[in-house]
């Protein structure tokens, strides 16, 4: 069945979509390193830190 031409987006709408997609692509590219960073934060878990054994100050 042939699709009605009126249902198809015009050129302006298409270029808007293309622009939005490009922005989205850029966002995904920027978000990827943060995602990796967030994943590596898992290694943090619960931690405890204390001093090394040391002599008392005179």
């Amino acid at each position, binding site marked *: 069945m042939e699709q009605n031409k009126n249902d198809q987006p015009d050129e302006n709408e298409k270029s808007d979509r293309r622009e939005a997609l490009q922005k989205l692509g850029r966002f995904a590219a920027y978000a990827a390193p943060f995602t990796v960073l967030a994943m590596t934060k898992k*290694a*943090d878990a619960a*931690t405890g830190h204390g001093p*090394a054994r040391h002599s008392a100050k005179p």
Partner: protein
Amino acid sequence: MRFPVKGCCFFFAFLLLLPFVASAGDIQINGTCVLGTCPPPSGTSDALQFNQSIGLTTGSYSLTLGTDQYSITWSYSASYTAAGTELSIDPVATYIGASPSVGNDTIDFNFFQNYYDNSPGSWDGAYTETVPLNLSGNVGAGSTVSGQLFYDGQSLPLVGPFGPGSHFGQYTETLSGLTDPTLAAEYEFIFDFQAGTQPGATASSVPEPYEVLPLGLTLGCFVWSRRAARRRASYTR
């Protein structure tokens, strides 16, 4: 025959690194020692000494309380260097029953790590605990999670108990009287699952939403862009 220089280098590097790797870390769950000796004995046999470390070590245990079944996993690491003593523990308890839990189940998870140094002086000083806690999934009403660190029986403040969601606590305390060559660290977590907890509910010390959110966002963007590209392709046909 040629001498395998490269292979020998790796072998000697391995030998050099051996003194810096030690095995320790002991785990007790609801009074049962599931790893090592609980609590570990004083002395060098089950302790990290200067310039020793334990790499990331993982394990798991199945716990049944009445008819309720839980899967408990953990990963830990520890070190003792000139910068001080350090330990990291990530316990995760997941309810794995086929139907909602029946009892009010308390899981007491204890991680022990000893340090040994017989040089003059003491271990006195500032100690810091950093405790992210997470209770996720459909847990029974009143379920909580908490964590607390002890050194030679002296406690840092209790973090929690908290209800569902992600939480975080960090405290520093100055401890004194730590003169024995052995310094005994104990990290205790209490996971309290109340009756009615649904399968898959999890208590842990991992800030899960922080990890899942960016990953979900990125995946969502990827899926959305693929669908948009397919839609665009169908328009241009």
